[in-house]
């Protein structure tokens, strides 16, 4: 009887530990066929904004390339894959024609300044701390439900070369204190 009670409390303790580990700070990893989706996050939208950007890392463990074609979400009329690029100081943004290729054995990261999942005609603002449900559509892996953690407005992944400071989407926007010396 005593043994049983100990086992039960141990189980409860383990369960509690598991819940802590699976807390909101750890982005959920999703497996869909050969794909592993990780670090799914979105930017909170400024007041009245009708568009939003969502980001994640997609790893293809398979032997054939897959393609991210787009998706759907209950909070947006349209979900597309876009690429942002800078040329001579001019910003361009376009839907990725034919879908974003995820080559076999490789990992593709969607991050500010590059690829993003473009949520158009938002029905509600994306608020920091909330979750954003999106069903992504892949050519081979099919439909995959992903929950994106909503970070701050204009939150940013670290620029290339600073990747060791954290994973994309895990970095808080840099906040400066008034009068702080540089």
């Amino acid at each position: 009887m005593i043994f049983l009670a100990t086992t039960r409390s141990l189980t409860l303790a383990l369960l509690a530990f598991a819940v802590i580990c699976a807390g909101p700070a750890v982005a959920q990893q999703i497996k869909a066929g050969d794909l592993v989706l990780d670090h799914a996050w979105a930017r909170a939208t400024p007041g009245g904004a009708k568009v939003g950007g969502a980001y994640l890392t997609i790893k293809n463990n398979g032997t054939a390339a897959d393609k991210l074609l787009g998706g759907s979400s209950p909070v947006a009329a349209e979900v597309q894959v876009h690429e942002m690029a800078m040329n001579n100081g001019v910003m361009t943004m376009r839907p990725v024609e034919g879908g974003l290729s995820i080559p076999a054995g490789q990992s593709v990261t969607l991050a500010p300044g590059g690829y993003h999942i473009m949520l158009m005609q938002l029905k509600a603002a994306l608020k920091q701390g909330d979750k954003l449900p999106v069903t992504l559509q892949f050519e081979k892996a099919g439909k995959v439900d992903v929950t994106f953690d909503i970070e701050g407005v204009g939150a940013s992944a670290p620029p290339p070369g600073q990747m060791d400071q954290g994973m994309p989407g895990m970095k808080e926007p840099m906040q400066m204190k008034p009068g702080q010396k540089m």
Partner: protein
Amino acid sequence: MLKSRGLLAAVLAALFLFVAVKTFLNHSTNVENARSSTTIGGAFELTDQDGQQVTEKDLLGQPSVMFFGYMYCPDICPTTLLELTNWLKALGADADKLNTIFVSVDSSRDTPKQMKLYLSSFDPHIRGFTGRVTQIRKVTSEYHVYYKRVQLDGGDYVYDHSALIYLMDQNGRYVGIITPNEHETTAIGKLRGLIK
């Protein structure tokens, strides 16, 4: 033999000198042309986020920081506005000494009311200017800002646009730019330099 070698050296030296001088002169002319044809900044008439009419004259007396974009942009525009927010915080009370302005190139969607709501998510120093198509064409032309409307499938549209931040002095004269990938320390240094 020795004589001809000396002559060859002299000819080569003369040729080198000629090319060097010509290159220098060409370069100077180009710089001069560039200066005279790229005066950034000038007269404009727009509407601010409170519905008030504004012109370039309203900005005189203190330096200005201007960024052109649109609110249907999920990437560079909120990124830049957040950066400006952080930089203005770093400046502390000195942020009051700057006009910090987000100019919309999206005349039909970015109304003053929408801009006010949008900018409420960023530093309160940042003002939003918008206007009619002709007014936006005028201000972007004065500031040499490139922008182009691009139609997407499904009826939506996006803009290609210059993503540089323009720094103007208190007399409305162009001082320099902050580029999108500029380091935060450099950017804040440029803003401090502008206030001095």
